[in-house]
């Protein structure tokens, strides 16, 4: 914008600028506050009044009316029929919102009185108790109300009564012998041991044929604790505080609630004797009180503990202010030993005493005890063949056979190394060695001729010795030098174990959160876990004891090392720190790759078969393939593998680096090596009549004959392949000669290009195929397609004019550069795979494109245009044909400019480019070589005929030429 560039532009603006418009997106303004409306759940508009004026409007604009005005409830004339009396309840005038959960009168499900439980309301009780005291006629109100209250029992009780239950009885089938003692005990009743016996004695008097109702169950009191007092504390009882001052001189605050109720009842019972009302010092002795009572009541200090630990207050509980009340005798002193205090409400003593675990002290260790255990090296000489034993001896000096008898200390460290080479090898290799050994043994036995077997064995042994030495040298580099000594190594190891012990023995994070270093091997992990657990307990022998004793010395030794390392490495971090991290999924299976289970057969065989036109079993591979379930469903096909969860080709895991991988590779390489060697002799005389496809149209019967022919010997196969390959070779040789000559005549510039793109050498079809086989990497243009995305192509067709001009300029300059002897240097190589390497070549060869085309067209009339390399490098595999000449001009221009995924052959494309982009260039070329001009001209004419619009465009060219 020009205005932007003006620096002295004044920034005064009037009004508020409009918000920048977002393209495509519908503008969504936030609704301003004054336009926001409140609606109820039905979408009706709600007027909001404010909190003091009633909140939301009710009814119709705060009236009881409707839109039509106020309509009274239906008027019924009293003449014909009496209007029923209308009971207008408040609910009739309420909206349905009021009944909702947050409304004025929320409706909830309530138990009706019929089904309500009989339990009395505690609050009511209390209120009644208090009011009875405070009433003018003390104690009357409650009694009166209870008298008047209708006898009403709940449904459950009614039902029970109907079934024969009586009050005070328990529920259930009647019992035989025992009569239930109806003793309603309020409060906490201890199970009695002694009283049971007395009951037994009572039973003797019970008649035989009489059954009794079961005992009534004392209901468990589930009264929730609502106050904030301590357990057992109940606060002041107004009855006691004001009423019964004289009876119980000391107000005990630590009685239970159930006791309280009992005292309530007790009070009530004793109400006759003791008149209620206000009594006490302040009011003097009333007329209704007997004067003997100590009205000037003093709470004696003897009720309180004055001395700590001095005298025994009776129950032997010193300093306990809380439990005073011991209604029960100490009939079982055993309990009191265990439980020093009073049993709180809702608690009972345990019937069984938990057994105390006796802790035995660890045994005293002898002074000279060293907490190290040595395992005996496990070598049995019988398992090792004499040859291997010899090899071992050779490598190590002496056999460890005798070492097993000696103590470990007397061994030098080289002996303490793995007792057998086999332990150093992988399991597979071990198997293989075993096989070899067994074979050797068999030979020993069967033939009896030792010499050959020994020769062989010697070779094996020597090889083994070499392996062992290599391994041992590597091994030594890892571990402390053997001869240098044992003690430093050991001290180091012991220090490490000590460190591990220190790290783990503290109060650390729990094991479940620690890292599992051997998750892949569950058994090993289990051993490691055991080790860690023992470490945590501070066990010094953790390492030794947690290892598997069935393992060999070498394995144990290695595992010991690993465990100590792992314990040190993965020692528990701070809990606060470790809580911040979560463990990632443990997925580093680096040493195995997923491979499809079924592998394709040998490609060389197939190629040979294809050459011989034997399709069928040789060229066909059939694999198991699992379609997706949904795909089957969509295709209306039953799942061929119901129950299998795999999709696609079944895969297996295979070691990435396995010896056998390489072994198989050598096989295939041998085969591949054979093939060229077989084709080497070019003078194989057996040249079958090579049928060129154009001459002979083969019918399928011909092919059938061919198929039947080679069925005889394998040599026929070979000879035929040989002949074909040789023929191909000859063609190739010819082509090479040709290219050589063309090379000679090529300009240096082009030569450089070709040396860069060496692969452009002409290839016969066979070679090409082989190349295709060798090329296992993904197609190059795949990468191209990824990286050179379509974003770089100009999609807008309006800018083609500019782009055209821009592109013309470089072309012109390159055309003016002198490269006079442009001959047919571009070889007709149908290369499909190698094109990407040639990219740099294209720019240089562009000016010469015209000539190339000319020569190509001259030499071979129907030479495929794709044979020339160049711009086709985008494509790998079959390309799309050139777009040709399209009437709509701008589209094509854009395409050429983009040169992206468009794959016209070089020749045509260049022609096109030449014509449309480099029109000025044409003159230059024309002056250079007239023959080129004519050639291109002729081609032009061909095109022009095809499209009329082009005529107009190329008019200019024609004018120039004429």
């Amino acid at each position, binding site marked *: 914008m020009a205005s932007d560039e003006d620096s002295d532009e004044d920034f005064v603006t009037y009004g508020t600028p409009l918000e920048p418009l977002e393209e495509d997106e519908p503008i969504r303004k936030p609704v301003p506050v004054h336009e926001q409306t409140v609606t109820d759940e039905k979408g009706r508009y709600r007027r909001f009044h404010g909190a003091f004026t009633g909140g939301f409007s009710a009814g119709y604009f705060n009236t009881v009316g409707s839109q039509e005005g106020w309509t009274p409830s239906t008027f019924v004339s009293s003449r014909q029929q009496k209007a029923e009396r209308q009971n207008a309840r408040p609910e009739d005038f309420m909206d349905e919102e009021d009944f909702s959960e947050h409304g004025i009168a929320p409706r909830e499900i309530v138990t009706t009185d019929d089904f309500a439980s009989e339990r009395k309301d505690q609050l009511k009780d209390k209120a009644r108790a208090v009011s009875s005291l405070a009433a003018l006629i003390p104690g009357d109100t409650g009694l009166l109300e209870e008298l008047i209250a209708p006898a009403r029992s709940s449904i459950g009780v009614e039902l029970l009564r109907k079934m024969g239950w009586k009050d005070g009885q328990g529920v259930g089938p009647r019992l035989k012998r025992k009569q239930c003692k109806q003793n309603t005990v309020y409060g906490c009743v201890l199970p009695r041991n002694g009283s049971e016996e007395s009951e037994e004695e009572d039973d003797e008097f019970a008649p035989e044929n009489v059954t009794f109702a079961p005992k009534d169950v004392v209901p468990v009191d589930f009264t929730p604790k609502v106050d904030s007092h301590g357990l057992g504390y109940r606060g002041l009882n107004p009855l006691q505080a004001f009423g019964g001052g004289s009876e119980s001189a000391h107000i005990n605050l630590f009685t239970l609630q159930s006791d309280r109720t009992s005292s309530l009842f007790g009070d009530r019972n004793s109400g006759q004797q003791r008149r209620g009302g206000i009594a006490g010092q302040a009011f003097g002795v009333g007329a209704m009180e007997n004067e003997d009572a100590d009205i000037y009541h003093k709470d004696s200090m003897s009720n309180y503990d004055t001395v700590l630990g001095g005298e025994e207050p009776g129950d032997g509980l010193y300093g306990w202010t809380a439990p005073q009340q011991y209604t029960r005798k100490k009939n079982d002193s055993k309990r009191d030993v265990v439980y020093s205090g009073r049993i709180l409400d809702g608690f009972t003593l345990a019937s069984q005493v938990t057994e105390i675990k006796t802790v035995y002290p660890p045994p005293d260790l002898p002074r000279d005890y060293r907490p190290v255990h040595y395992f005996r090296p496990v070598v049995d000489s019988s398992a090792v063949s004499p040859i291997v034993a010899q090899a071992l001896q050779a490598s190590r000096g002496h056999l460890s056979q005798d070492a097993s008898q000696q103590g470990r200390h007397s061994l030098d460290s080289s002996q303490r190394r793995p007792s057998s080479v086999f332990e150093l090898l992988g399991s597979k290799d071990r198997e293989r060695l075993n096989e070899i050994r067994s074979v050797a043994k068999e030979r020993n036995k069967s033939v009896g001729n030792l010499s050959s077997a020994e020769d062989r064995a010697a070779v094996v042994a020597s090889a083994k010795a070499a392996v062992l030495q290599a391994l041992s040298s590597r091994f030594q580099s890892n571990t402390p030098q053997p001869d240098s000594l044992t003690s430093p190594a050991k001290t180091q190891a012991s220090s490490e174990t000590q460190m591990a012990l220190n790290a783990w023995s503290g109060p650390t994070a729990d094991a479940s959160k620690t890292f599992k270093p051997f998750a892949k091997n569950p058994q090993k992990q289990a051993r490691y876990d055991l080790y860690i657990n023992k470490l945590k307990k501070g066990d010094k022998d953790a390492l030794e004891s947690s290892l598997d004793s069935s393992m060999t010395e070498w394995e144990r030794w290695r595992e010991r090392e690993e465990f100590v390392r792992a314990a040190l490495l993965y020692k528990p971090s701070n809990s606060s720190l470790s809580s911040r991290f979560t463990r990632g999924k443990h997925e580093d299976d680096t040493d195995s790759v997923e491979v*499809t289970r079924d592998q394709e057969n040998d490609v060389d065989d*197939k*190629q040979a*078969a*294809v050459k011989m036109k034997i*399709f*069928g*079993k040789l*060229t*066909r591979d*059939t*694999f*198991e*393939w*699992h*379609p997706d379930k949904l*795909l*089957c469903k*969509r*295709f*209306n*096909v*039953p799942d*061929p*593998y119901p129950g299998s969860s795999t999709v*696609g080709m079944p895969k297996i895991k295979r070691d990435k680096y396995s010896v056998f991988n390489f072994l198989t590779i050598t096989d295939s390489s041998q085969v591949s090596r054979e093939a060229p060697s077989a084709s080497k002799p070019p003078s194989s005389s057996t040249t079958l009549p090579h049928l060129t*496809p154009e001459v002979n*149209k083969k019918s*399928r019967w011909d*092919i059938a004959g061919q198929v039947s022919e080679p069925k005889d010997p394998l040599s026929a196969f070979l000879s035929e392949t040989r002949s074909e390959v040789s023929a191909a070779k000859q063609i190739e040789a010819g082509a090479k000669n040709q290219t050589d000559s063309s090379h000679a005549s090529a300009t240096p510039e082009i030569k450089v290009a070709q040396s860069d793109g060496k692969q452009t050498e002409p290839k016969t079809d066979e070679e090409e*195929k082989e190349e*295709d086989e060798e090329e296992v990497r993904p*197609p190059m*243009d*795949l990468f191209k*397609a990824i990286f050179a995305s379509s974003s770089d*192509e100009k999609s807008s067709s309006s800018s083609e004019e500019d782009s055209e001009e821009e592109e013309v300029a470089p072309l012109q300059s390159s055309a003016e550069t002198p490269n006079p002897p442009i001959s047919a240097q571009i070889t007709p190589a*149908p290369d499909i795979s190698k094109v990407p390497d040639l990219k740099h070549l294209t720019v240089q060869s562009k000016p010469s494109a015209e000539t190339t085309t000319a020569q190509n067209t001259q030499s071979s009339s129907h030479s*495929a*245009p*794709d*044979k020339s390399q160049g711009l086709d490098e985008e494509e*790998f*595999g*079959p*390309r*799309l*044909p050139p*777009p*040709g*000449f*399209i*009437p*709509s001009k701008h*589209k094509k221009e854009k395409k050429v400019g983009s040169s*992206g*995924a*468009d794959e016209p052959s070089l020749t045509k494309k260049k022609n096109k480019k030449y014509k449309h982009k480099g029109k000025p260039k044409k003159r230059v070329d024309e002056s250079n070589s007239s023959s080129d001009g004519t050639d291109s001209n002729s081609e032009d004419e*061909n095109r022009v005929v*095809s499209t009329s619009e082009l005529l107009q465009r190329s008019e200019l060219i024609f004018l120039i030429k004429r």
Partner: protein
Amino acid sequence: MAFPQPRPQAPQLPQHLLRTIECQQGAVRAVRFNADGNYVLTCGSDKSLKLWSASRGTLLKTYTGHGYEVLDVDSSYDNSQLCTCSSDKTVILWDVASGQVTRKLRGHAGKVNCVQFNEEATVMLSGSIDGTVRCWDTRSRRYEPIQILDEAQDGISSLKVSEHELLIGSVDGRVRRYDLRMGQLHVDFIGSPITCVCFSRDSQCTLSSSLDSTVRLLDKSSGEMLGEYSGHVNKGYKLDCCLSDKDTHVLSCSEDGHVYFWDLVEGSLTLKLPVGKAVVQSLSFHPTEPRLLTAMEGHVQVWGAEPEDAAVEDKL
């Protein structure tokens, strides 16, 4: 055997040019009949897809929405949907009537060479240069493919779908046939990069053309070669081949501007139909009648067996 009996009367070949349609959409990358053969679909290199009337050659609709040239198209059995694939790596499902994009599916890593509906148009299968075939569900709204067939070691050049089989030709020189009913994958080694594969109409044979200028007819079940057809030129381009409506002839495009007709049984060249000077890049045979579509550069030619009738039709 898998061979259809030869017909007593000579099958008519579409050798008369009925009309030429100038598509005005750049190079025509593919030309296809719709399911019943009444309409013609052309994929242009100018990102557009055009729908034509087969009988009159009039343009009915243009579908735009691709970001790069359209490479292949297929129509559903009921003509309600189209699917196209493009160099812009996407597969688009179109609503035929409205011309709107129903779904645009991304996922391929490279340009998508071929696309096909299955029989009920519930799945779209697209083969790409990235070597995978992706099965897209047209029913669900998922944008992930149901399954990815990545067994090919090189780009996919062509694919066809039958009732329960997928036939996939790849540049790695192999024709793969996925049998959903059996749960098997059959790989036929051809050697040369495959440019086009077809089922025969009786779906007993597969036809595959490859870059060694050969079209091969293979027995589907055993993989044995039943016929080999050569003479045309197909060395660098992705050219189509097909079978005639009665399975009597094998047709292939050629780079020398002809369409070659071979007798299927005899393997002899029956007709060499001159189409033009440039490469015949796509062709499509009418599902029931002897009628052929060829695409060369920017135009499509319609060929029929009898010129007179066509002329009459044209006038009408």
